[in-house]
Structure formats: C-alpha cells, structure tokens
C-alpha cells in the first residue's frame, strides 16, 4: 500500500502545488487522481517516485518511507508511463521495452526475451520488435510505453496522463487493454488524468483534486456519481451524472422477452403467433440469430420480409455483461423504444422495453447495487 501522509509541495516562489494531501492507495487496484489543470495531481504522482520531493509530509510504501532507499532503486521498482510515451527514438521497440531489465543488470538475451513477452501482453505484433518508435502510430507507441513500464514486473505502476494524446477511439482501446492487463497482473496503479470519464471507467478508487492541491473527494466511482461531496465535485462530474451511474448497474437482472423475436424466414403461422401478443413490434433476425431490425406485425409478410424497410434496432447490449446504461441506450436509440439483448457472439437473447429497463433501474437504486459485482460490468 502507498500511504501519502499529509504531504505538501511548496515551490520556492511560494506556489503551493499540493496542500496537506493524505491518501491511502490500496494495493492491486487502480487509483485515479483526477482534477482540473493546476490541481497538483501530476505533482502528487511524481512525488511517489521522487521526481518531485515533498516540502512536508511523507510517503510510505508498504509502511517504509520512500526516502529510505536510493532514489534510482525506488524508481526501478515502479513502472512509469507518461503522456506521448517518451520512447527512446534511437532504440528499437524491443530495446526500449528492455530498458529497466537492462538497468537491473539482466543479460541482453533475458531482457529481450522478457520484452518480447510483454509486447505480446500489451497487444503489439512481434513484427514491430525491430522497428523504431517513429514507425509506430501514437496508440502503438503508448502500448510500448506501458510494456516498457511493466518490463521488470514492478508491483507499482505510475501513469501520468498516458492516453491523453491519442484520439478517442484509440484511447478507448488502450483503456480496455489496461483493464484487461490489470485483471491479469493486479498491479498497484496510480493513474493521473484530467478526464473524469476516464477516471470513472478505470478507477477502483478516484481522488478528485481541486486547484491548490487539495483533495475534494476520495471514493469509488459509483459513490462519486451518486453522492458527490460538494458543488465542486458535482460540477466536475458534469452533466448526465445519473445516466453515467447506470454504468455500475448490471443488466443481468433484466428479464428479456424472447416472444417478439422472429427469424427472417418465419412462416405465416409463426408470424401470426408471435404478433398476436400485445407487442407493437417484432424483431427480425437473420438465420444466424443476429438482429436485422424491427417491423410492425401487420407489415411483415411471410417469405417477403424486406430487410431494408425494417426500423433500426439501435445498439444491442450484451446481456449480463453490459450495464443498464447500455441497455437503456439501445432502447432510446431505436424508434420502437425497445432494446435488443444479445449474447457474447451477437445472437439475440431477447428484447426489453424502456418501461422494463426503467423498473430495473428503480430496483437497482433500491438495492444500492454498487457492489463489486456491479463494478465488474463496466
């Protein structure tokens, strides 16, 4: 555990970057420091590997003051990832990743073997090993940055706005990758960002900091969304707080209806049977069970279903894996007001109406479903 104990950073010109900050960063989880620029989040991170020395207070790593060991020994025991990756442009990708093992005195062969292993872990093709950084895209470079930080298998990973400089699509990919890697490796990660959505997506715990280096709130993301400590936090969380909180409610409890689902080759009898209930629309699937679109029962003629004429079905949610937010999103995206639940392979499991989703949301609020199980559905 990293314990930040009443730490202050004051610069010679009198600026206070961090003001009596105390934080307990739990092991094997992602703790995100988030806040507007000038809130001291990066300074806080850099004090953990002594890139910045605190003016007052102390930082303890597993109960031992980080000042107790030589600074470079400390730094080699913590992975460090920065914005724009900071790769060494004169070294190949594999040698970039092998940096810390080499510093620790590993042989070249062993370091490179380890680096190759990490390339695979962060999703980099082995053909990139002999390339130079300039030959890689921004997203690939950032993966190399993460691999390089993990190379010596440090228990702690410090990440300073690592995904800020890449486009949103690549960023989402990198975030998902980080969560996957974290599931496998269980590092103690301290992650700095100015993006509250990123903080909520990645953080097990989120520390919201305010200008002047003060801690505004330290809580799990669901709690942040449901109970912001003050106006500053609420403001910083932005709009759609309620909708975003739905990300923490699992969709597994939703009862899907499989009745109003018909394959595209359904015969007249089947169409009539399925359309008889008080369902305004039928979901037509292809022969593989994947959704094609909605149609009113009276518009569907057996054997002549015109796929192009069907109403859009929005974005299906993976039942049990995606959250109520995804389910609701699907329902409001489709003009029918119904959402399509699919399994992991994209085959339709059933459909659900806005009304049912709304009830599930009410139930979830009532149960306060923001526990670990809910956490897993992000």
């Amino acid at each position, binding site marked *: 555990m990293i314990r930040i104990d009443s730490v202050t950073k004051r610069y010679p010109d009198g600026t206070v970057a961090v003001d009596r900050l105390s934080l307990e960063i739990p092991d094997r989880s992602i703790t995100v420091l988030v806040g507007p620029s000038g809130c001291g989040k990066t300074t806080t991170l850099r004090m953990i590997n002594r890139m910045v020395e605190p003016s007052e207070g102390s930082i303890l790593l597993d109960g031992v003051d980080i000042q107790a060991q030589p600074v470079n020994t400390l730094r080699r025991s913590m992975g460090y990832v920065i914005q724009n990756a900071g790769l060494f442009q004169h070294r190949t990708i594999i040698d970039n990743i092998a940096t810390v093992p080499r510093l620790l005195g590993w042989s070249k062969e062993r370091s490179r073997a380890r680096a190759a292993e990490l390339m695979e872990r962060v999703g980099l093709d082995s053909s990139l090993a002999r390339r130079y950084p*300039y030959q890689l895209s921004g997203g690939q470079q950032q993966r190399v940055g993460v691999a390089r930080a993990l190379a010596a298998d440090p228990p702690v990973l410090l990440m300073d706005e690592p995904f800020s400089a890449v486009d949103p699509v690549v960023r989402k990919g990198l975030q998902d990758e980080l969560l996957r890697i974290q599931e496998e490796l269980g590092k103690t990660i301290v992650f700095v960002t100015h993006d509250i959505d990123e903080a909520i997506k990645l953080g097990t715990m989120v520390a919201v900091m305010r200008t002047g280096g003060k801690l505004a709130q330290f809580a799990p993301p669901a709690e942040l969304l449901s109970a912001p400590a003050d106006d500053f936090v609420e403001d910083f969380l932005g709009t759609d707080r309620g909708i975003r909180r739905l990300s923490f409610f699992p969709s597994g409890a939703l009862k899907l209806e499989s009745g109003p689902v018909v394959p595209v080759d359904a015969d007249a009898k089947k169409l009539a049977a399925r359309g008889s209930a008080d369902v305004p629309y039928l979901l037509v699937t292809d022969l593989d069970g994947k959704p094609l679109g909605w149609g009113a029962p009276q518009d569907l003629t057996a054997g002549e279903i015109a796929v192009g004429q069907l109403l859009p079905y929005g974005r299906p949610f993976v039942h049990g894996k995606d959250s109520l937010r995804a389910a609701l999103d699907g329902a409001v995206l489709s003009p029918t007001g119904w959402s399509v639940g699919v399994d992991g392979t994209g085959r339709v499991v059933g459909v659900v109406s806005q009304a049912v989703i709304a009830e599930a949301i009410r139930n979830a609020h009532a149960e306060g479903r923001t526990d670990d199980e809910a956490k897993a559905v992000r």
Partner: protein
Amino acid sequence: MNILNFVHAFFSDSAHWHGYDGIPTRFWEHIGYSLEALAYSAVIGLPIGVLTGHYGRGGNALALIATAGRALPTFGLLVLLTILLGFSLVPVMVPLVVLAVPPILVTTYEALRSVDPSPVDAARGMGMSESRILFQVELPVALPLILSGLRSAAIQIVSTATIAAYVGLGGLGRYIIDGLYQRSYEKVVGGATLVAGLALATLAVFWAVGRFAVSPGVRRGA
C-alpha cells in the same frame, strides 16, 4: 590559359608528386594540422557544449564566447602570435582552434537543448542515473546536430589551415603562397584545388560517420 589548364599543368608535372614539396607530403601535413586543430577544438568545445546543454545553463555566456571567437581575425591572430612566440606550430593552432570552437560549442549546446524532454523524463522516472541519461538518451539523439557542428568546424579548419604556410610551415598552403611569390599560377590553382578537394572529402567522411554512428531511428529526416 584557363583554370583547367593550370590544374592540368600542375597535376601532370611529375615533379609535383615527389619529395618534401611533393603533393603527398603536403597533403598529409595539411591533414595533420587539420586533425590536430580539430582534436583540440573538440576537446574544448564538446564537453562544455554537452554539459551546458544538459543542464540548460550558461547559454548566454556561450553565445558571447562564440561571437567573440568569430570576431577574432584569424590572420591577425596568426601574425601576432608568431611575433610573440616565434615560429612554431602553436601560432597556427591557436587561430584554427579559435575559429573552430564556436561552431562546435554552439551546435553541441543547441543539440542537447533540443532533445525532446519527455524521453529524458521517462528515463529519469525509470531510474536511470544522470550520466546514463546523458550518454544513453540525450547524446544518441543529439548526435546528428553535434556532428554537423564538428563538420562545419572541420571544413573551416581544412580551408584555413593554409595559413600555416605563411609562417614557414608546410601543408597545402605552401603551393598557394609559393606560387604567388613565384608567379606560378598553376601552383596556386593546383594548391587551391587540393584544398577544395580535401574540404569535399571532409564532407564525405562526416557523411559516412553519420551513416555509421547515428541510429536509423534518429536519422530519418536528418
């Protein structure tokens, strides 16, 4: 008679290829002076440029020294030092070094200053010592610019080392000075051609060193 005729006359005279005043002797003398002057200049310019660049301090002082060095007239310095110290290699070396240190110093400083700070930050954060950061992160990236400073210094030295002949020493300047005295223009033109050729060869050497020493990851675009 045009220049090409002079050149032809100079190089086809077999007498110019032998003895203490032959082309090979003068050529190697010239290279010797040049290498010596470049070595002194590099020993002075590189460490100062590297350290000031790495720590980012003293840039203004450097600019001042460089300007002063460039302002000193090479020929005047040569004559003055010869009067003061007598005939030796020292009065030749000093003006050459004064000429060559500023480009080395200033480009080396700039080369270190212009290294992207984020890999340096990453290196420090990963626990690299300052000397490792300098030698393994900054210098490899700064190398192309440092080499370009050395290259312009070397070319200036090669072209200016002809002054050695003014104070009775050898080198390719011999042909130019003697030729002017003897009104032997083929000698003047021949000597000048050799100096120009040597300057071009210097360029080629630096190009080859760059190909060999600079990482392909840094070289692109350079």
